[in-house]
């Protein structure tokens, strides 16, 4: 199973195995990784699963969808590497992915 590294705002690191097909958000929530709230459960309705994708993984994680772009536009502390983690589906290619969580989710 692909391993995903979640790094919290305070530097705490958690490496979690996430099965293919789940989202990077689900990987965090199912393993009680703090910092990803995911209020809407992956419906792309809330922007509370905001993460920063490690620069080295930007290409593999792909582009933001139009809806995602629109939601992120109003989230806090958005950067070029910001994504909604519910919109990144885990697959073999993402084994080793590193994401960081922002200070808070709104």
């Amino acid at each position, binding site marked *: 199973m692909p391993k995903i590294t979640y790094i919290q705002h305070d530097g705490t690191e958690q490496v979690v195995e996430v099965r293919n097909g789940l989202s990077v958000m*689900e990987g965090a929530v*199912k393993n009680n990784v703090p910092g990803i709230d995911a209020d809407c459960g992956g419906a792309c*309705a809330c922007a509370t699963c905001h993460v920063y994708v490690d620069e080295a993984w930007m290409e593999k994680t792909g582009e933001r969808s139009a*809806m995602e772009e629109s939601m992120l536009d109003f989230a806090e502390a958005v950067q070029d590497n910001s994504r909604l983690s519910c919109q990144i589906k885990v697959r073999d290619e993402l084994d080793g992915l590193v994401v960081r969580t922002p200070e808070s989710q709104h």
Partner: protein
Amino acid sequence: MAAASAHVVIIGAGHAGGTAAALLRQYGHEGPVTLVGEEPIPPYQRPPLSKAWLKGEADADSLTLKPLEFYAAHGIDFRPGVRAVTLERGARKVGLSDGSSLSYDILILATGARAIALPLPGADLGGVLSLRTAADAERIKAALGPGRRLAVVGGGYIGLEVAASGRALGAEVVVLEREPRLLARVACEELSTFFQDQHEAHGVRFELGAEVTGFAGWAGKVAGVTLADGRTIDCDTVVVGVGAAPNDELARDAGLETARGVVVDLEARTSDPSIFAIGDVAHRPMPIYERMFRMESVPNALEQAKQAAAAITGRPAPAGECPWQWSDQYDLKLQIAGYPFDADQIVVRGDPASAKFAVFHLKGDLIQAVESINSPPEFMMGKQLILGRRPVSKAKLADPAVSMKEVAA
């Protein structure tokens, strides 16, 4: 803050109870945590039951909040399939339906709400269903498909989501609503009309102003819904979606203060300092509206789970929130922020004909609520403006050429 060794017992393993258990561990609570749930499965997300799951677009695994192993691995004693039947506050003891009892230092009531049943003749016929649990959703899914006829009683969000999913599964669908318009209790007329048009375009039939008097059947199985005007609407499945009532009997019987649910403060604490109440069952203060009310939504369940877990572990309370909810029907994403309390004006931004618009409810120049269709900027910025209680210009708000960022500037 409770003692580090305090035994926290959570009654109700829905989204609120399950989240509270996980947060207690995430926030560092070291004492025992017991999570009691009536259903046979660990906590899961209910919203997809009428949406993606019902249409077959999400599997059971994706509904589950945390895998079953999570609870034992984090020292959470998860007890499925049992219900709390008694609460003795003096002895700090909860009696369970299997005859056992649990002693607590801190109790969290997360007993949720139940679908209101219609006390009408024939309501006990096979095929008359409601939607609350995964088991309910399984029954509904099994009953839908090409050639099947579904009658939905109640034109609220649950009813409309089931109608949309029913159409996606190929069933014929008729929605029976007592009021002259859909979503009468929860949305403005503009939105009611919009949703009716959209559903009709997808082949859903509506009977508005229809008073249901009972259910007709044969050999124990429903075959039609009878109306006050004498007609019978033929169908083989009925889904009743006429609202929910809080499961607050345990609290009432134990003498806790209740109103339209269990009364709590900003920490989600009840009138007994050792007992919290969270989620659909709680009647809670909402400072931005300067009033108390009861909400049925996942964001509300999560917020109160955070409040209770923070209070128990001595963390600062979460910053205040703007309540919100969402609904998916066909390719429409509805996002609602706030509640239209005391609103005196409605501003429609965008054109409903384009299926991309938002309806703002204002009280003076303050936004009280926004209902947005396929319009995330209006929802996201609206939510921030509601929470910040910041006045806006109605002229700018009504003009889609002025961006939401400019509206808020």
